[in-house]
């Protein structure tokens, strides 16, 4: 994921010089997102879908719903599964084959945000306790890697969940009978992932692909609708000081509001 592009020493120096004046190579200030565009319902076959453009990053998330068995320790709850695919056409750094550690980390960070904030009311997805529940599959497809895949993927996953429709059903014995009409998936929280990069001693929000090549460390904080922290993930070698972590948590909380407003207005 890191070495998908080469950055010359000259570019690196220029980027660092700009950072010392509070600016970035693409004209942003340190704590700004790139332009975000959200399209919903882009795949009719899926129960829910969304495409998110974050600068050059382009991510598609699809939701499919199936009937399956619950986990034995939570017999009264539906099941949530998140998977991410980094397909080779999205970047020269992606390779064909089963998900590698980067794809797995991406999926698990998105998963953690949705799961821990209890975004989906899984209790409402139980059909027959211990036997039959709905399984919600969220599949994330990265279509172009332009940096900060986590935030784009989390946003796409949330937007897809918000426009997911489930069919109406009634139980005939133990079998499901599908009825006409749809109901929305019970979504009760809106987790937003906010990712920061550390370049030298500067903290930047929403690192672009260029910035990802020179950053030393990454920190993602996922914030729920009540401004609580529901997931954290530090990535790439490198370190943060205690003060940096505290600052990042505060900025993440503010920035998550902006993104939540945007996604909710797009998914009405």
């Amino acid at each position, binding site marked *: 994921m890191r070495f998908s592009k080469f950055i010359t020493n000259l570019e690196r120096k220029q980027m660092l010089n700009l950072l010392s004046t509070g600016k970035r190579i693409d004209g942003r200030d340190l704590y700004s997102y790139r332009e975000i565009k959200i399209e919903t319902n882009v795949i009719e076959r899926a129960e829910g879908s969304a495409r998110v453009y974050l600068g050059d990053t382009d991510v598609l998330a699809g939701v499919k719903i199936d009937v399956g068995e619950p986990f034995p320790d939570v017999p009264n709850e539906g099941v949530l599964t998140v998977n991410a695919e980094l397909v080779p056409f999205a970047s020269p750094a992606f390779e064909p084959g089963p998900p590698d550690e980067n794809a*797995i980390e991406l999926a698990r960070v998105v998963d953690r945000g949705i799961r821990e904030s209890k975004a989906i009311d899984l209790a409402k997805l139980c059909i027959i306790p211990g036997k039959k529940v709905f399984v919600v599959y969220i599949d994330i497809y990265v279509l172009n890697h332009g940096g900060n895949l986590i935030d784009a993927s989390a946003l796409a996953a949330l937007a897809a969940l918000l426009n997911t429709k489930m069919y109406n059903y009634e139980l005939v014995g133990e079998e499901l009978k599908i009825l006409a009409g749809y109901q929305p998936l019970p979504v009760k929280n809106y987790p937003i992932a906010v990712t920061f990069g550390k370049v030298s001693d500067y903290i930047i929000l929403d690192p672009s692909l260029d910035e990802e090549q020179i950053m030393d460390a990454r920190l993602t904080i996922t914030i729920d609708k009540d401004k609580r922290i529901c997931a*954290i993930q*530090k990535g790439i070698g490198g370190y943060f*000081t205690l003060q940096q972590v*505290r600052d990042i*948590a505060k900025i993440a*909380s503010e920035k998550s509001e902006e993104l939540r407003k945007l996604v909710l207005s797009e998914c009405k």
Partner: protein
Amino acid sequence: MEKSEKPLITEDGLRTDGRGPRDLRPVKIEVGVVKNADGSAYIEHGKNKILAAVYGPSEVHPRHFALQDRALLRCKYHMAPFSVQDRKSPAPSRREIELSKVIREALEPSLFLEYYPRTSIDIFIEVLQADGGTRCASITAASIALADAGIPMRDMVVACAAGKVDGHIVLDLNDIEDKNGEADMPLAMMPNKGLITLLQMDGLVTQEEFKQMLELAMEGCNLIYQIQKKALKSTFIKTVEEV
């Protein structure tokens, strides 16, 4: 799976294993336990029993993985099938792949990898018994194993978790607390300069609780750091006596 019906924290503020909220589980570390490895360590952190072995710097296999400007650091975190309640398939799970990645990234900033270009340093972690907080214990053990292998480092890395259980902020969660508590936050750091090299969390906490957990986890790290340093020193003192 273990599921507790009892409260996780009693009225007198004691936890399921009798600890207070800010108490660590007993930690025992041995160094140099795997003869063939260049460096190794064994840690018992509560009921966790974990072995870490380091091989390298050595020639990179396969060769095209070699980096021209520094050593390639690889890490494999693996749980033995008998380490948990229900047998775990020995094939690497998605969780193990993610943990291998975050553990490697937690250790990487402590090492002078640029001293050994075109080589590899491999870390193997085997969890023999798990009881919550295995990634933290693994990092603590792997860092000593790296030191035992003589790899130059800025500081040792030590890890400890803090979390929220039954509304209380607690240190060093065990398995039951991890599964039934509200939040678990593993943190790794290089204590000399207080640099945080791993930070993860799952759960739901407020900003204020997050701050308290950060401080508590760092406190826990400092406590384990003393045990870690003592374990490393004692092996070398022993060597001198043998001569």
